[in-house]
């Protein structure tokens, strides 16, 4: 018994303290979240007064009452003036840009999270499932190393030193995000499975015919034949239900995430829920092992002859520290 416990302990420690093999995905997620946040602030900027100002439907007094009743906090509660609102929107834009470029990454992530939380609390009516998942995943991303690839931090040599501490934190954040995504899809699937319209295969038909969620052209086309919405209804249900169980298998995981990403791309195009889809795809990228990205990059560069074209232009393989550089180098050798 003692030796079993000791062996489990050693295995767990080695696993948690080892160099993580999910670094590319978090970097991609960082870029996706940076774009998502930029779009959030820029989209709201022309009507900022209506959405978040004291002249909008949610007065400053009601907002403060809401905060005291729900226990939420918001920087926008400090002042109801336009100047303060503009200052926070500006800070949001700067932090989102920093996140996108990977500059002072962890600090920018923290600032972005605090500001996002503040704006979400100011107007909860505009929030979608994407905002909900984005907020939670960003919290766990604070533990991840998201600036190892495609970041100014790595270019300038400002990434934190790799140590067992950063590895343990990274693995913790990764597992928390993995569990959160499982909970998301499993809960959604189980809720759907209890609904009559999901059980009889007509749910997607009603979604496609809805003014709000059905694209005027594509939605009507897909809903026009009885088979398409039925297949889509059961496919969505099956995919979401299987995620929580199959995602734990490393071999199946990339295919499952690929299928889900396609589903979310479809949701973005057909239902107009691009914010939700963007964030969820970014969050799913975190779960893809690095070797999948490296294999894919090698295949693409081989197919497109990127290595030969690049070296014909005088490019020399780099030190292999960044994705694609190393994979292009392999195709040139």
């Amino acid at each position: 018994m003692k030796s079993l416990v000791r062996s489990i302990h050693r295995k767990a420690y080695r696993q948690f303290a080892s160099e993580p093999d999910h670094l590319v995905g978090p970097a991609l997620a960082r870029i996706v979240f940076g774009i998502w946040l930029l779009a959030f602030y820029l989209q709201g900027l022309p009507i900022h007064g209506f959405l978040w100002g004291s002249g909008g439907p949610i007065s400053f007094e009601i907002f403060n009452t809401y905060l005291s009743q729900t226990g939420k906090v918001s920087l926008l509660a400090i002042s109801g003036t336009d100047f303060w609102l503009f200052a926070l929107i500006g800070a949001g834009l700067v932090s989102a840009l920093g996140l996108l470029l990977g500059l002072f990454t962890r600090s920018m992530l923290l600032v972005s999270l605090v500001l996002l939380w503040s704006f979400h609390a100011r107007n909860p009516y505009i929030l979608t499932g994407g905002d909900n998942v984005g907020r939670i995943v960003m919290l766990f991303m604070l533990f991840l190393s998201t600036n190892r690839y495609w970041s100014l931090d790595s270019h300038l040599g400002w990434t934190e030193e790799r140590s067992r501490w950063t590895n343990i934190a990274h693995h913790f954040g990764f597992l928390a995000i993995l569990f959160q995504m499982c909970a998301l899809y499993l809960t959604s699937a189980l809720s759907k499975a209890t609904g009559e319209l999901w059980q009889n295969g007509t749910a997607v038909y009603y979604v496609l015919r809805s003014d709000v969620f059905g694209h005027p052209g594509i939605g009507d086309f897909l809903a026009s034949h009885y088979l398409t919405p039925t297949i889509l209804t059961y496919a969505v249900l099956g995919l979401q239900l299987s995620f929580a169980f199959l995602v734990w298998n490393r071999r199946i995981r990339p295919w499952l995430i690929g299928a889900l990403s396609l589903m979310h791309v479809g949701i973005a195009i057909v239902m107009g829920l691009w914010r939700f889809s963007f964030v969820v795809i970014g969050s799913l990228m975190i779960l893809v092992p690095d070797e999948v990205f490296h294999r894919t990059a090698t295949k693409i560069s081989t197919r497109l002859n990127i290595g030969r074209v690049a070296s014909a232009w005088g490019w020399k393989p780099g030190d292999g520290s960044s994705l694609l550089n190393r994979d292009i180098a392999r195709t040139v050798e």
Partner: protein
Amino acid sequence: MTDPAEYSEPRRRDIQRRLHRAARIGALYASVLGLVFYAAFLSLYLLPENAVKILNPGLSQSFLSPFFSQNWHLFAPRPPTSNRQLHIQIMFKEETPGGGDNQPDEELSRSPWYDVTTELLEHRWENPLSPAALRRRTIMGIAEPYLNIASRRRSDPDAELSGPAQRLLTNFYRLLRILGEERLDAGQSLVAVRGRIQSEPIPPFRRYGLPSTSDRTYPVTTPWWRGGPDP
């Protein structure tokens, strides 16, 4: 004779190494424990009603709210089966010299019903990045729950409204006032505004032999709200 200080340096390093290792193991087990607790409370929070949730309603809420609060129903258990729009009608007066504040209603002008949401929806489909999408979400996010409050008031007019319901009602009438004021021309001032939530059912799937699930078409019209302080 050997200096005792010469032995203490490697010994000190050894102690430091052991402490660091112990701290890392502590961090590892704290992470694992944290994950287990998060998973347990999250499962409790998201699962349907069960004995633990009924007997200890605040247990998972206290841990997860507000930072980890979440809802993944996402068109479940029932997707939308009707399309809703918000219409507003305003009562206004022309600002004429010598006109009193207490003009009778017969002398005031009423606008036709304006549909404030369909146009926003069209903008949104044309351009997904348009602010119209956020504007529409705010408007319907405030207007739709009003239907529940309205039906509760119809069934029990004397019932006291909860804090969130009262807050929603305030937001709703404030929204109507803002939308009404946007419709005024120069030289006009708002006297009163009312809203109407129109609901049109989506054509049912019944032609394929499945039962209809359409909602009744009903407009829900609010009483006139006269401008001034928030209700």
